[in-house]
């Protein structure tokens, strides 16, 4: 056991943070969201810097990939980092055309990045399917939830074999947790920065005990999510660990969304203030892969062989 970052992990984080400071951030996310666009440049930069190779690297693996996915989410990157850096290297033997979108359940519903994706991985229960997309296979969908959304016109994928469905879900769950941790961290930080300076009743709002306790409780939930996510990654994404990480992250995401907005007041609803960049994304993450109920059920099934759920 060792909870401190190793030298190589520290170097990877510094490298990705330097890249993100230049190419991502709230301002860029807002700009792209206005046009429902994808950040092809950022994705290209991440891939050419080698971050997609962390997952199957000799000295690196899922934990390093998760740290990078989390950092991308914290910097509000408008890229399918979870798919490119974590899920695809874990599930596929070859490199598909990017961006890669992930679909499950009702594939006709809006899906993150589907309008720009060249490849879709679909969770079909026992089996996962891989589908190449051509221009016109998906339509952009206007959305208020922080990511470019698209709707697939049809789904006709190639099966990846029995068992590939569960593999896809495990790594996707881990990715949801990692993205949520980074996104929550930034939503909370944005709120903290505001509440330390914004004054009412002659003092900083963040000095009121009620406000402090609610933010501190968010911190407890985010930290629990963070360490469960890192642990699950290090263990290689076993079902029970990833379901616990995702369940805890989604519980935390709900509370972080509600508290950061409540405590930020009206400014938090505006596009002038950055909170929405992260907060709205949290709600989109909460719906992915069946949402918090599915994570809870998956955890029960993995731990106690409860029920007959896929």
């Amino acid at each position, binding site marked *: *056991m060792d909870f401190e970052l190793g030298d190589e992990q520290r170097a990877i984080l510094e490298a990705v943070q330097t890249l993100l400071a230049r190419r991502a951030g709230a301002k860029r996310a807002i700009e792209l969201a206005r046009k429902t666009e994808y950040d092809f440049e950022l994705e290209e930069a991440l891939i050419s810097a080698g971050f997609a190779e962390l997952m199957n690297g000799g000295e690196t693996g899922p934990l390093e990939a998760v740290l990078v996915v989390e950092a991308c989410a914290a910097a509000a990157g408008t890229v399918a980092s979870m798919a490119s850096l974590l899920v695809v290297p874990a599930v596929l033997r070859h490199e598909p055309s990017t961006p890669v979108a992930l679909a499950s359940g009702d594939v006709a519903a809006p899906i993150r990045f589907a309008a720009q994706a060249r490849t879709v991985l679909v969770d079909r229960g026992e089996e996962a399917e891989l589908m190449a997309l051509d221009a016109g296979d998906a339509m952009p969908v206007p959305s208020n939830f922080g990511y470019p959304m698209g709707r697939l016109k049809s789904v006709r994928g190639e099966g990846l074999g029995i068992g590939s469905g569960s593999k896809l879900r495990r790594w996707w769950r881990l990715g949801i947790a990692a993205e949520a941790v980074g996104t929550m961290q930034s939503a909370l930080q944005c709120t903290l920065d505001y*509440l*330390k300076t914004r004054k009412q009743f002659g003092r900083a709002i963040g000095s009121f005990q009620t406000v402090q306790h609610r933010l501190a409780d968010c911190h407890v939930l985010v930290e629990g999510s963070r360490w*469960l996510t890192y642990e699950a990654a290090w263990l290689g994404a076993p079902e029970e660990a990833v379901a616990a990480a995702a*369940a805890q992250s989604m*519980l935390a995401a709900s509370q972080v969304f509600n508290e950061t907005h409540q405590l930020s007041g009206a400014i938090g609803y505006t596009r002038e203030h950055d909170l929405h960049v992260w907060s709205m994304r949290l709600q989109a993450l909460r719906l992915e892969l069946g949402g918090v109920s599915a994570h809870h059920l998956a955890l*029960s099934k993995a731990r106690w062989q409860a*029920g007959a759920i896929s």
Partner: protein
Amino acid sequence: MEFGWSEEDRRYRRELIAFVEEALPETWSELSADGPGSDAQAEFSYEFAGKLAERGWLTQHWPSEYGGGDATAWRHIVLSEEMWARGEPRGPQYMNVNWIGPTIMQYGTEEQKAHHLPLISSGQVLWCQGFSEPEAGSDLVALRTLALRDGDDYVVNGSKIWTSYANNAQYCFLLVRTDPESQRHRGISVLLMPMDLPGIEVREIPAVVGDRYFHEVFLTDVRVPIGCLLGPEHEGWSIVSYALQYERVGAPRYARAAKTLDEIAEHARERGLLDDLRIQERLGEARALCEAARVLTYRVVDQRAHGLPPTPDSNVARVAGTRADRAIAELALQVHGADALEYGGFADKNFRMAMTAGVAVGTTEIQLGLIASRALGLPKG
């Protein structure tokens, strides 16, 4: 960063579990019905802690110069987890090894170390913690129990409240005000007070959480020899702060909660409830809370293993542990239904144990306040 147990620690856990299963009597479930503070468990703790000591496991994480085994903080958390998961067969002695001993090592005189540490490391002594007072609960620095020098003694007057284990303890880790003119953090001292001195009266406060759980300790002209002073006079607050860092994660409640949850799931299966999606969801939610509390506690253990100074992560772990404890105690009631209403049953026992989590060792509100200022950097009000 890595999250694997060493092969040594895995082997130790297996050996420990085998030992505990052998050492606990068949009547353990009834014997432990009222928690570590009950007379029955206090009495049993001498035998059990003695056996742990014989194997070198009771204070394995202490330095060898004080009779320990120089084991890592990880090794000690394995022991703590397995103990709490079974209702703490060390009884009140978990406090001794977690923080009373280490605090005496840090601040004690040679005489104090020579007297107290062997008693603790052989498992033959019980302590209680004299912190809270009727007018000093969460606001601990409002304490008023006065200890005034008179010759070679302190004369102590005042009272302590909520004192678990006072019914059986031979010593009390007592916080007193040694400077009557002082305010708040200043002028506080720690006395290692023998509980058999004249003028000490212990009264039980009957409580719904269990028999012999809480006591009030009345101190009337108790003459405590000055040799019992721990650390510098009037500077007890820094000693308390040191001790509290150890205490907050000393009792890994999540280990008990996780075991309880497994038992709840088994019970649900037997009653045909495990196919119920709502029950599955509640179980999954509770398991995630429990796992979060575990990994957050490990975060603190890791800092200790690295020899890092204390951080607010111990407060974070405590708040997460309380949330897990409560979720699981309520779920036990739900799954067991009306059977839970009978005193001493599985669900009732767990519910009573979990009830105190948010108040013991500093209330959740105190923990959140410390997180807000120390981890989040929020300004003072």
